[in-house]
């Protein structure tokens, strides 16, 4: 796949040996990797179609080391790409040939668990699941739960504003982060928020979350933890058509019910998942809905009945309600394994991530069916139905260049369709390199210029993760120029007092 990255700077590459030495002085021992074999595991992230060996890999262990590495790179104008666990699906952690890859995996400690304030302080390399593991003995958990949660890091979650099944009710990463410590490219440490709410001043927490490693390196995260719901039960509902399932989703929400999770799969995804994990999914339906209701026992009991009735009104072909924790886990097993399951029926798949207004679901599904013929490729659909976040998985064979190109074109067509119906390019996986060149579909030049100005406030030399998110790199000096539109005041049509 082809996205042009900023060209390597020859003068930096020529100084590689000297740079490695300077960095080794800051991060001693095995913290600096320069041999190609050692760097190989870092050449790609979850978007494996893109690969690039970095110039040097650095694995710092302390905040001070991060500060000094960044300051050195700043002084020497060396590009830096931060990396957590490398599960990004948009190429956010793709290295640069003349860049330092700053791997945060050694920041792997849970620093503090504070049940009374319902907050946990962790280092950024701690995995998402480990945050829950650290608090579950007291009945607490961390709500955002990306499917990659055993592997992905909290630092990466912050950088991507990751979501998961539970985000419908409990919010995305951005709604669950209370505080951050980060290091700017200049080496300065900034602390935002903490165990209190609403950090004062500009909402830098909000800007940092989802900034894809372009603004600063996160070195500590304070997250909100929640008490686990008393009960959780799930319904597994099969529908004869996608339209029925889509309408059912709208009706549930329209009835004032916000489920803990509401996921939908289409027939190809159902089949693949069933073949893989034998979850007992019905195979004679076009769409499957998993609706999880959580909360106090009384409430869950009542809502199950309400949702069942809504499903029946929408032509549900069959309805199963989980009778035990084991059965509930079983309902989810197929959904959770949907990506690998699809991986079994196709050599490769390309995962899209657009979000659409829920009501556009039937139209978008219909158009995607037509596109399958146009591009001559199959799509398996998995969605976070409650919030309209689609994950069409385009099946292709990467060894066949023609298929690869068609897959990419198909993906772009799907995303453009999402924008056309009022949605967006990416709901939770980020822009990265993958959707960078599609940003113009959603944003005008002025829209993008404002986002770039945020970048300029943090990193005016554009050294942190360049080549991601923005289709074009503008110099901050160029962006800061004022374009003055001389006007005259007495606006005749504006009322004045």
């Amino acid at each position, binding site marked *: 796949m082809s996205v042009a990255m900023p060209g390597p700077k020859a003068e930096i590459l020529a100084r590689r040996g000297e740079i490695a030495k300077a960095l080794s002085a800051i991060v001693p021992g095995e913290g600096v990797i320069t041999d190609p074999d050692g760097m190989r595991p870092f050449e790609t992230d979850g978007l494996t179609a893109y690969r690039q060996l970095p110039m040097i890999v650095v694995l710092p262990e302390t905040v001070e080391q991060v500060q000094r590495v960044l300051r050195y790179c700043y002084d020497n104008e060396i590009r830096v790409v931060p990396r957590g666990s490398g599960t990004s699906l948009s190429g956010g952690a793709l290295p640069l040939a003349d860049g330092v890859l700053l791997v945060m995996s050694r920041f792997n400690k849970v620093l503090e668990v*504070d049940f009374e*304030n319902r907050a946990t302080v962790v280092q950024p390399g701690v995995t998402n699941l480990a945050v829950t593991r650290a608090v579950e003995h007291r009945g607490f958990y961390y709500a955002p739960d990306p499917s990659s949660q055993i592997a992905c890091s909290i630092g990466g979650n912050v950088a991507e504003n990751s*979501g998961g099944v539970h985000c419908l009710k409990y919010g995305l990463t951005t709604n669950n982060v209370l505080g951050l410590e980060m290091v700017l490219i200049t080496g300065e440490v900034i602390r935002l928020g903490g165990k209190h709410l609403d950090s004062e001043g500009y*909402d830098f927490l909000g800007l940092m979350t989802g900034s894809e490693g372009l603004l600063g390196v996160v070195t500590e995260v304070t997250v909100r933890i929640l008490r686990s719901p008393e009960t959780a039960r799930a319904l597994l509902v099969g529908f004869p058509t996608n339209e029925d399932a889509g309408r059912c989703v709208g009706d549930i929400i329209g009835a004032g019910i916000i489920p803990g999770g509401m996921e939908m799969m289409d027939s190809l995804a159902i089949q693949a998942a069933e073949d893989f994990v034998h979850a007992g999914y019905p195979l004679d339906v076009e769409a499957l809905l998993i609706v999880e209701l959580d909360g*106090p026992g009384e409430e869950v009991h009542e809502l199950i009945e309400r949702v069942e009735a809504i499903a029946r009104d929408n032509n549900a072909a069959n309805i199963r309600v989980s009778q035990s924790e084991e059965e509930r886990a079983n309902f989810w097993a197929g959904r959770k394994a949907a990506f690998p399951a699809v991986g079994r029926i196709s050599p490769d798949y390309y995962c899209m991530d657009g979000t659409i207004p829920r009501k556009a679901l039937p139209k978008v599904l219909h158009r995607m069916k037509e596109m399958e013929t146009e591009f001559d490729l199959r799509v398996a659909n998995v969605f976070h139905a409650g919030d309209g976040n689609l994950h069409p998985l385009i099946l292709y064979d990467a060894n066949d260049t023609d298929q690869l190109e068609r897959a990419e074109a198909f993906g772009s067509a799907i995303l453009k369709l999402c924008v056309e119906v009022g949605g967006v390019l990416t709901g939770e996986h980020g822009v990265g390199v993958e959707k960078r060149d599609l*940003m113009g579909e959603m944003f005008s030049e002025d829209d993008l210029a404002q*986002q770039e100005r*945020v970048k300029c406030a943090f990193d005016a030399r554009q050294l942190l993760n360049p080549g991601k998110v923005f289709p074009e790199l503008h110099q901050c000096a160029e962006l800061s120029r004022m374009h003055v539109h001389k006007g005259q005041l007495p606006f005749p049509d504006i009322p004045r007092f």
Partner: protein
Amino acid sequence: MAETLRPETAESVLDVVRWAAAEQVPLEILGHGSKRGIGRPVQAEYTLNLSALSGVTLYEPDELVFSAKAGTPLAEIEKLLADANQELAFEPMDYGPIFGLEPGTGTLGGVLAANLAGPRRIKAGAARDHILGLSAVSGRGEAFKAGGRVVKNVTGYDLSKGLAGSWGTLAVVTDLTFKVLPRPERIATVLVLGLSDEAACAAMAEAMGSSHEVSGAAHLPKGMARSCGLAVESSVTALRLEGFPSSVSYRSEALNGMMRDRGAVEILDMPQSENFWRAIRDCLPFAGRSDPLWRVSIAPRAGAALMARLANEPLNYFFDWAGGRVWIEVTGSAEDAAEGAIRRAIRAVGGGHATLIRGSAALRTGLSPFEPQPAPLAALSRRLKENFDPQGILNPGRI
């Protein structure tokens, strides 16, 4: 007296800001002016009044979303949503009563600019957590949009959040899209009477750490409950439960059982609860007065410790957000309105911030109404401001 411009369209807003940018004319940005008393007084030749930029442009109850122009009265939006059994889940507080204004003033733009929230902040978040997208004009006179109309969106930086709580100093917002949620069918409040501040903070922490989904936790020290409509003399610790009727009665039973050993328990029904939480939301205990008023945000469990450190200061206070938001009214005549003491106490209990919400113009000019920032953060804030409003024409001096 500043001259007021009152544009009726987003295009005219753009014209005004472009003109102001070209001529380097400072503008004070206003909706209804209900929060004008917060922050440093703005010195500007012209007032850009957005109240004519009004109207809901999209409302799709099934999609849980609406869009409206920045000057749309919040009251109008709340009414529209209520008619469809929906609401802004973050319970935007109404600052009017604190400043002796009629309740119900304020515009949607102000909701975001001040990042409003209410008691449900602890469960549902603030305006920042519910904004989906917006259109705005930067201090450079460039019109732009950010975000979208769907809940899940990580396409580019979250600029809508970046403008939350920015008090009109980065851009003039012209249109906003928010998500909405169903209104709870039932509300009840469990009151625990007679607790000390420390016992109350412990009780609120226990309740918040339970699986009963408490959506409001406030503590009024002795003698203050009357101003919130309760005929009680002792201190009152209040825990709110919302949701489906059967669930609310089940949970209030459970919470009642949990709290019984701590103090006498009483239950408020739905209408009583609504009144009570509106009073907490709008800070009614300190409404209609003029003494300096601070709003403090700290770790919830530190609430009582904070006030213990301020025991010798002449002040009144109460807690919201399970102890994490403290409203402090300074009754003495200290010149700095106890700023030094309050900021020191916050640092001593683990950090947070204090904002002077009410105070004379002289006071707001003389001290720092917002929490002073450490140097690197202050420099970052300055750079952000310079990037969006290089000439400082939007609400100069406000923060």
